[in-house]
Structures are given as C-alpha cells and as structure tokens.
C-alpha cells in the first residue's frame, strides 16, 4: 500500500492496478482507489448486477435504481492566464446505460448531466462566515446559479451507448444525469492547461490564479 498523497506523476496503471512507477509491486487496485475517492456520488450497492427478481417476457427484472450507468468524459478548455477565467470548448461524455427504453428522456438526462458538470465545476459554492457559520451567499444572485445563457450547450456532446447491462428491467439502468459526478474532469482539464493540479472546487478565478502563482 502506498501513501495516497503520492504525486500523480509517480504513478502508472495497468491490469486493473495503479502502481508506483519506481516500485510496481506497490499498488492499489481500481476498486481500492474508488473506495477512497472522496467525491463518489452515492455508493455501490451489494446487489450491483446480482439481484434478479424474476423474468418478464424473457427479460430479467431487477432493481433499476441500483443499476448505475457507467460514463466516461473528456473536456477541453481554454484558460485566460491574466484573469483566471476559462472557457469550456468541448464537453464530451459517453454513458453506457444498458438498454434504452425512452431515448429522448435518456438523452435529456445525459444533456442535463452536462449542466451539472458545468454548474458544479464552475459555480456551485457555499461560503460560510468563519466566525459565525452564517451562510453568506444564500441568495440566488450571490450563489450565482448558472442560467441557460451561462451554460455552453453548443459544446456539449453527450453520447449514449446501448450496452449489455442486464439486471435492470428490460436490461435498462437508472438514468439520473449520470455525468453529474464528472465535474472533476473540468478541473483536470484546467490543471492540464495551467500545468499544476487544482484540488479545490469550484474553479473560481482566484483558485486558478492562486494555482498559477499569480496571487
């Protein structure tokens, strides 16, 4: 087991393991890494893919809510080094949602997931007064919830893959804005652009300027 604070540059991955480049026998499995991830949404259930209640017209009937879709994402950004602003140029993610039962509904959820990615990466921020615990930005104008004009829907590229998840009703999975947990991909893209990791969110200008050593 290695120190989880080790630098990402010192790591590589192969065969389901993440290991120290200098000592490949020191590794964590992907499952162990995921178990440590601080921002996993929800939790993997014990009956993941294993609970079938009965068959219906030859299809397995299970617990759709427990059948989580799997998604991967890629983000391209442009960062303004003077102000710490950044622009998302491309937000693509691919979701394996098992059998698609209602295409437009599923696609709507996929697109809304992009909104969640943007909102969590850029805007959602709860700020408390350090002395009193008072919630300082509780108004909508203070918390700066993004409007439709702030969300770059023209660069969204959500894609659905009809896969083989067989344990939900008719082979379907739950489809609740699955990309919502992928906001850290935006953070990684910004980190890649500026050359240093950002470990706080959301990606405020001061966070980026600080990471760049400008303040």
């Amino acid at each position, binding site marked *: 087991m290695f120190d989880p604070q080790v630098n990402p540059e010192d790591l590589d991955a192969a065969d389901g393991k993440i290991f120290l480049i200098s000592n490949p026998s020191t590794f964590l499995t992907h499952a162990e890494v995921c178990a440590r991830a601080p921002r996993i949404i929800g939790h993997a259930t014990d009956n993941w893919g294993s609970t079938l209640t009965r068959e219906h017209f030859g299809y397995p009937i299970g617990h759709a809510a427990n059948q989580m879709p799997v998604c991967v994402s890629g983000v391209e950004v442009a960062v303004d080094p003077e102000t710490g602003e950044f622009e998302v140029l491309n937000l693509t993610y691919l979701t394996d949602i098992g059998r698609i039962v209602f295409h437009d509904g599923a696609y709507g959820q996929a697109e809304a997931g992009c909104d969640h990615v943007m909102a969590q990466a850029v805007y959602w921020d709860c700020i408390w007064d350090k002395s*009193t615990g*008072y919630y*300082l*930005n*509780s108004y909508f104008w203070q918390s700066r919830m993004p409007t439709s004009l*702030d969300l770059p829907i023209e660069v969204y590229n959500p894609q659905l893959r009809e896969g083989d998840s067989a344990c939900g009703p008719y082979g379907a999975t739950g489809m609740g804005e699955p990309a919502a947990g992928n906001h850290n991909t935006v953070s990684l893209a910004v980190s890649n652009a500026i050359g240093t990791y950002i470990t706080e969110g959301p990606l405020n200008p001061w966070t980026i300027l600080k990471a760049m050593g*400008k*303040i």
Partner: protein
Amino acid sequence: MRQFSHINATTVAEAAAAKADGGAILAGGTDLLTMEKDFVLSTSADTMVNIKTIPDMDTIVDDGSLKIGTLAKLTDIAESSTVKSKWASLAESARRVGTPQLRNMGTLGGNLCQECRCWYFRAHENYFNCFRKGGTLCFATIGNNRYNAILGGQVCFAVCPSDTAIALTALGATFSSNTRSNAPIADLFVVLGTSLGDNEVLTEIQVPAPASGTVQAFYKYAIRKSFDFAVASAAVSVTVSGGNVSECKIALGGVAPTPYRASAAEDELTGGPLNASTAAAAAAKATNGALKLTDNAWLVPIAQAMVKRALLTAE
C-alpha cells in the same frame, strides 16, 4: 416585509419634502424593495415615495452635452442611438447591468444610488449590524472578503456596485439635484454610499461632449457572464492628439467603495502614445496602493487586466 405607506410624488419638491420626513425614494424599486423583503436593515422607512410619477424626469437629450433624467430606464440608455454613438462606454455600462427585466425597471438614478452588495451588509434580518448600518465593525475585514475593496476602503470595505457610475466617472460627468447643480459625479459618492442629503433628490446627469480624438471603452469582469455584479470593471476615456495621449481618465469599479480614479495609471499614459506596451504599463499602476485583505488579492490582477483591455479596446 414591514408595512409602509406609499405616495406618488408629482414634483421634485414634493418628493424631497417626503424624503426629509423619513420617506424612502422609490424609482425602479429593484434594490429598495428587495432590501425591504429581506429585512436587511433593522428599521425601514414608513413611506415609499414614488418618483416615477414626476413628469419629464426620464428624458435623454443631446444638446451638445448629454442630459439624462435620473428616471431614464437603463434599457433606454443602453439602446439609445445618441448615447451609443457619442457616449458608447455609458451605453455599454448600462447594457451590462443585471438582466433585461432589471434594466427595464431600473433607472439611472437607482443604479447610481443603490446600496452595496457586501454579503455582510445584505445578510438576512440584519444578522451583521455592520459599520455601514451604524455598528462598530466591518465584518468583512475579519471574515470572508473575497469581493471587498482593495482600494479606498476605510471603515467599510463594501464596493460600489454601480456600473454606470464607473463609465460616468471616466466621462467626466456631473449631476444635479434639487439642491445642487452640475456637481462633479465624484462628489455624489462617499465610502458609506451617496452624499445626498435628507431632503435631496437626484434629478439629472450631465455628460460633456467628448473632445475630438477621444476614444472610450467600458470593460467588466463578472463571475457569471449572463448577469452579475462586477468583480472588477474599468472605464476609460482617452483623447489622442498628434499621436500622443493628451487627456486620459481611467475609472475602476468593483474594487473600491466609490468609483476609483486610477490617477497613477492616467499619469503613466498621458503624454505618450497609446499602444500595447504603454497600456500594460498603465494597467500595472492602476492598483497602486492596493490594500489586500485576507481573501481579495485576486482582484488586483483582474482589475489590471480590465484596465489594459479597456485601453486596448479604445486604442
């Protein structure tokens, strides 16, 4: 919301008298009524004095200089062909205020006289009785001050939230009320708000005609692009004569309790050419004397960037 009575003033004198009796001047109401709804202050006025019923105070007239009644809607200023053609930075600053709905309701006078947006001042039910409200402490100085003043802060570090005030400052505007005529716009603002007296009602803004060879620009940085208050903004008015800058006014917004004239940057630019190099040098001096609190150092590079970009836009 506390109970209040409501009167429709038909003359400035009537409105001023009602204000002197403790009334609050109500124009667009986009700030005043939201403050009332949130019980921002521990007390509120017994009377709302509606001044929208005063005739002819919403006009936009170009008679060589620009004269705008303080009841003129922000939308009308932003879309006025006269303002856009000769005072473009003012039109742009009006366009950047709030949302279309707010600009349709909000007036120029209200935009200039609105209260600050410091989250300690705006806390529900007067949670923080700060210096601005008669208390003894500016809570931002010991709390989270990421949006508070880096320049000109004294007992209060809330920043002037008005966009139009910044453009008007760079344009050398003046104002009139029922007790003052053609006073410099800078005299309207003090650290704790405006200098308007208990019986004073703002009536008109005057903007001189730009001199030949003058270029102007307004640049605003906000976290949320669709509508938001300025984190930092810059308005510039630069007159170039014979290839060199003969006169220059640079105003900063969002970083000081009042519209802030960046005189060091103006001095840097005056007498020389306006180009990328001189714009960067002037921008670097725009925040001279900045006092950084614990969380607001990030405003310095952003304010400098706004000045540089406004100057390069005007180039």
